[in-house]
């Protein structure tokens, strides 16, 4: 396998596809901001809505807008003016009383037309009511039921309010972790093989795979940190998953230092294999157990370590799965190059 080319070529093809499709497919239309975002009950307000990737002038059918309070209560816009492709002004009238007992209530903004599909901005407008009377609010409420929504059928990735364009990191950050785990698993498997057979070749493979795994781990950490800067607000938030990852990398750095501290290749191979296995056992609670028991900013904190099924749509899957395979193949390619260099070095050393 190490000397064959077809899987390396496949990896490159899949990665080229990942980069092209992952970076070029546009996001679905969305709402990036609304002004003003605060209003008082009983007021008439003109909301200036800024769209993202929207084409309001090409709507075809009239654009509709709602402010949704909950599943049964929604306000319709009385008048909508399209300024240009990215800007819309919508006039809303808020009744003097809301059918809600809270002083401040958040409303979700929805825009819909056949061309752009439905755009949603949660908690777009906060409405303050001076006097609270839910019964009166119910009586005064003019409900505009939300129905006949359109779907955007063009090829696009979902628009998420905090993620925005950074959603594309799903094809880099996440698959890098996947391939890191695969590389470490194979490294451990070769360490076991080495301990069973004593063939020096297995040790070289285990080492090369660990090198590849650490490289991918560092890249996963860096892409994650950049993503965290844009979504959580800081490169490093002392989140449990970031800490556990850093520790996991420390363990593998210790593995390399251990290897470096032996002259005798047989002794080095044996002790490194033992430590690799012991460290992998210690890694299991680190990566699979503790992050599930602790609160985290990372998606899927209380269960799945990465994300839930809602986070990917079918267009994203079309890029995400090839990306996993592509990055994994690249990781194994890197490991195979390291392995070949090691083999050659040993052969040169033996010839002296």
């Amino acid at each position, binding site marked *: 396998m190490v000397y064959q080319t077809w899987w390396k070529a496949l990896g490159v093809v899949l990665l080229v596809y990942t980069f092209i499709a992952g970076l070029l497919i546009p996001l679905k239309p969305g709402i990036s901001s609304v002004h003003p975002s605060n209003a008082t009950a009983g007021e008439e307000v003109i909301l200036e809505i800024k769209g993202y990737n929207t084409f309001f002038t090409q709507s075809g059918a009239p654009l509709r807008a709602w402010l949704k309070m909950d599943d049964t209560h929604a306000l319709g816009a009385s008048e909508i003016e399209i300024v240009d492709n990215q800007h819309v002004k919508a006039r809303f009238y808020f009744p003097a009383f809301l059918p809600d007992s809270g002083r401040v209530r958040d409303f979700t903004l929805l825009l819909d037309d056949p061309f752009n599909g439905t755009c949603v901005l949660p908690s777009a407008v906060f409405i303050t009511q001076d006097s609270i009377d839910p019964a009166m609010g119910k009586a005064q409420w003019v409900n505009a039921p939300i129905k006949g929504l359109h779907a955007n059928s063009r090829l696009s990735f979902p628009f998420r309010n905090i993620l925005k364009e950074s959603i594309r990191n799903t094809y880099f950050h996440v698959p890098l972790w996947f391939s890191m785990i695969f590389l470490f698993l194979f490294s451990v498997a070769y360490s076991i093989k080495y*301990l069973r057979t004593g063939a020096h070749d297995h040790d070289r493979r285990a080492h090369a795979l660990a090198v590849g795994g650490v490289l991918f781990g560092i890249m996963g950490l860096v892409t994650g940190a950049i993503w965290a800067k844009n979504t959580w607000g800081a490169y490093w938030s002392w989140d449990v998953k970031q800490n*556990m990852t850093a*520790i*996991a990398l*420390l*363990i593998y750095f*210790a593995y390399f*230092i*251990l290897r470096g*501290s*032996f002259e005798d290749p047989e*002794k080095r191979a*044996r*002790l490194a*294999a*033992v*430590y690799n*296995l*012991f*460290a992998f*056992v*210690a890694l*299991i*609670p*680190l990566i699979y*157990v*503790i992050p599930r*028991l602790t609160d985290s900013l990372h998606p899927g904190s209380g269960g799945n370590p990465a994300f839930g099924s809602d986070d990917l749509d079918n267009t994203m899957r079309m890029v995400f799965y090839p990306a996993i395979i592509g990055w994994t193949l690249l990781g194994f390619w890197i490991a195979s190059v390291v392995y070949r260099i090691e083999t050659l070095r040993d052969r040169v050393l033996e010839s002296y």
Partner: protein
Amino acid sequence: MNMGKEIWNLLRKDLMLELRMGYALSGIFLYVFSTVFIVFASFIQLPNTVWNILFWVVLLFASVNAIVKSFVQESGNRQLYYYSLVNPVSVLLAKMAYNVGLLFLISLLIWAGLAFVGGNPVRDPELFLLAMFLGSSGFAITFTFISAISAKADHNATLLAIMSFPLVIPILMTLVKLSANALGLMNDTGLQKDIILLCAMDGLLLGAALILFPFLWTD
């Protein structure tokens, strides 16, 4: 000779060696007291959160110092003699059992020392003792096994620290949480889960150590 008896005899041998040498054990105790003294002299007043963390950090470093000599205090030839005489796994288990006891003793001393100079904030002594025992076991299992690896290399004290600290961080984090509950700093309802997690981590590391040790001692 069955394994239990082997372990018991090896344990007695280790204890007698330690007591006869004397300075090793008293060195550790002196280390504990000077560390506690330095901590107190620098902090003067210890808030409970700091007390909690310092306790485990002092224990962590004392453990490394106490355990690093496990496999180097006797000569390689004598080790080989033990391995041929008894089951090698018994040697490891005896060392681990000895180190669990030693670390538990050290942690009691640190508790006493910190309580003497900084007051005793522990509100739930049973839980704290349990945390101390589970912590001592986890540290002892990991450090003993890693010291068996690092004993094969030069500069083994440094190697032991860099190889084992990342491995015990998950144990350490769970311990800090557990003892924070014992100190009344937080009130966790999922305490059972943490205790089970600690036991599982200790068991997992012990199992891995037992499986891997036969590959380690042969040279």
